[in-house]
């Protein structure tokens, strides 16, 4: 990008050429004429201001004169002369030759040369024995500007807006070679690409800078929550950063479902599950989107989750709860309530194992589901996947999606109390939730309909379901 910008600027600057332009014209073959005239319009060809130089190799008198077209043409009359018709290139003039009708005559003894052919009453045009005698235009009253010199002459002229003006250059004297005339104009180089080039270049630079900043920010964010590739089967849906291994460990270890997966509820809406519904389970302040580790960089400072797999599952749970796998830049700036909530009763190893298995199963299903449906902006949906595969209730956000409720774990709260109770109680409750999600008769229970389950559980479930749906 920067390269493009540089190219744009370079192109623009490359079009700035030298300011002055000089063109040189050589007159016709020597000995043929001593006069050179410019065609109308040549003097102002590049710029109204022109610097004229005439020179002759043998150092004789050279005369430059500028006059009106009629005057110059009249003065030249029938004499042979070269005519500058325009530019042959930026460095040379185009000339043509006009044959004259002047006939060289033998020089006569008497000074009266008026009878010479082709000459008017002027008395300076006669031919010498070995060539042409160049007439001298310097003294004429008709010129608007004139200059003369030995060997070379210089003249500066600005063409008025109206009128046609010609230059007359003459080598004066016997055997005068044709004058060599140089016309120089100050050249205003049109650089049509300069402004657009610079504009485009600066725009590109700005874009590059902005993109660079964004990249930087993104990389920083990524640094805070480095993408874990490979091992962790995390589906980065909806911009959710992958979980760190510790977070995953934490999530795995904790009864995520029971934990404040709700807490892991994505930033935006509060997860349906609130700690209130999980009485006694954890008094962690389930601030939606409470940060944990793996949170957006804003939550860098948050403790990196509870010591995974430690002997304090509750602590882990808490941290796990607080961990919000949502990648969404935590809108809720509240740092995770690092203070571990009062620990719920430690779970038995069996419970932990079962929970782990359930988690794995759920995770697999979640992954499948997530791959099938991409719910844009539904960070809540991503939460479940991130949340160690737990189906966070937060994902219930989008009640519209039928999957959500399924993904959601409305029954989580019920698990909480169930967790308090026996693991067995929790199991059928979960199964029931699954059944509901898939459209089965929810009333069915292994024990039969109307199993004496905690009212609260059902209510919670129905409530959740209702909320979700």
């Amino acid at each position, binding site marked *: 990008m920067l390269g493009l910008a540089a190219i744009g600027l370079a192109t623009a600057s490359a079009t700035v050429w030298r300011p002055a332009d000089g063109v040189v014209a050589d007159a016709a073959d020597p000995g043929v004429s001593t006069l050179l005239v410019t*065609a109308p319009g040549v003097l*102002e060809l590049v710029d109204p201001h022109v610097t004229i130089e005439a020179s002759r190799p043998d150092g004789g008198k050279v005369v430059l004169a500028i006059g009106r077209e009629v*005057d110059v043409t009249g003065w030249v009359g029938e004499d042979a002369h070269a005519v500058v018709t325009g530019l042959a290139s930026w460095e040379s003039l185009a000339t043509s030759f006009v044959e004259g009708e002047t006939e060289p005559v033998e020089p006569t003894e008497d000074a009266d040369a008026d009878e010479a052919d082709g000459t008017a009453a*002027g008395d300076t045009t006669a031919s010498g024995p070995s060539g042409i005698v160049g007439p001298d235009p310097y003294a004429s009253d008709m010129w608007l500007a004139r200059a003369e010199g030995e060997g070379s002459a210089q003249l500066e002229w600005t063409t008025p807006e109206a*009128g046609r003006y010609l230059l007359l250059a003459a080598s004066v004297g016997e055997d005068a070679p044709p004058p060599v005339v140089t016309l120089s104009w100050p050249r205003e180089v049109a650089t049509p690409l300069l402004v657009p080039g610079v504009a485009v270049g600066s725009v590109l630079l700005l874009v590059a800078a902005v993109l660079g900043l964004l990249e930087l920010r993104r990389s920083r964010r990524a640094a805070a929550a480095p993408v874990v590739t490979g091992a962790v089967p995390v589906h980065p849906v909806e911009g959710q950063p992958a979980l760190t291994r510790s977070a995953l460990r934490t999530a795995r270890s904790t009864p995520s479902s029971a934990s404040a997966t709700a807490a892991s509820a994505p930033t935006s809406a509060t997860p349906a599950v609130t700690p209130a519904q999980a009485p006694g389970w954890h008094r962690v302040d389930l601030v939606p989107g409470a940060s944990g580790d793996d949170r957006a960089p804003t939550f860098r400072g948050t403790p990196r989750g509870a010591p995974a797999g430690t002997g304090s599952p509750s602590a882990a749970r808490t941290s796990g709860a607080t961990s919000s796998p949502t990648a969404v830049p935590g809108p809720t700036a509240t740092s995770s309530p690092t203070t571990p909530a009062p620990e719920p009763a430690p779970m038995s190893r069996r419970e932990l194992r079962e929970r782990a298995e359930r988690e794995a199963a759920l995770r697999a299903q979640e992954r499948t589901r997530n791959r099938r449906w991409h719910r844009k902006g539904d960070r809540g949906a991503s939460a479940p996947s991130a949340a160690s595969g737990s189906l966070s209730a937060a994902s219930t956000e989008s009640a519209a999606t039928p999957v959500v409720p399924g993904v959601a774990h409305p029954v989580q709260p019920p698990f909480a109390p169930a967790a308090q109770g026996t693991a067995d109680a929790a199991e059928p409750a979960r199964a029931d939730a699954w059944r509901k999600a898939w459209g089965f008769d929810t009333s069915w229970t292994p024990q039969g309909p109307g199993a004496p389950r905690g009212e609260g559980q059902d209510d919670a479930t129905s409530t959740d379901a209702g909320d979700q749906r």
Partner: protein
Amino acid sequence: MTDTRPVRSRSRAVLGLTLGALVLAGCAEPLPVPDPAPAPVLAQPVVDVAQEDSILDAVGQALENAAEDPAALEGRLSGPALVIRTSELAVAAETDSADLLTALPTEAESVVITTDQDWPRISYAISVQPDLQTQRLLVLEQSSARANYKLWGWVRLFPAIELERFTDASVGSSQVAADSDALVMTPQEAIERYADVLTKGGESDYAEQFPDDVFRQQMAEISRLQNEALAPADGRQTMTFTPVEGSVRAISTANGGALVVGEMTALEDRTAEEGATISPASAVERALLAGKTVENSMSIGYTSTVAIYLPPAGSDDQPAVVGVEHVATSADVPG
């Protein structure tokens, strides 16, 4: 994404370079082609006022240096002006007095510039007033492209005369041909008729066509005096004016008329009876006759220029003579 980035930037660089090269190649400016202003529809003045002033300066220089450099005079004077001035200089040298030289200021009060592009080109200049004398009307002429403007002639304008106005010098006036029919009479006719009037006085056929003017009165007076002086010697004096062919120049005035300037020669014959002696009447004549023995007759040649205003054809106005220059330039004795 990370892998493709360098590749993309490389290809972009190549693309950019290609574009740049193309742009550079294509942005070479085309050669300009001469595009002169179109030839003007209206004829333009052949010289501008600045040029005219410099011409007049050059003429003035030539006149000033004439005493030391008579050859320079020929570069800036021609026609009757050259003749008159040369004669005056000779007389001045002879009489050791510059008083007889006609005062010719070349500072112009106004100039009249023509638009005719062909040669010969003419312009008028009305000079400022020299001390205690009337203004001069200077006639400048460029006979060909390679010649310079020269003072062809001048007239001393009559006192208290009001010249008909000309078009402004920046616009230019047109020249009038000697045989133009756009005036009450052709310029050539005007000069011829006036010469006749001067010669014959009141008996001329054209006496009524020209109102009385100062010069005519002067001539009449001189003739009377001369004849009176020669009468006792049974002498006569005659003055014959003859127009010079091809000397008529005319520039049109703003109202369609023209100011015509023409050259005449005059011959004054003074004869007395045998045995009488007549003497030159003026220092000029004396100078012209230096080295000659005057007996009973002499003839003096004059070079004259006259300026006549001719109204446009169909006008009720009469032509008016506005100025004359009449200088004795030669003298001879018969035998």
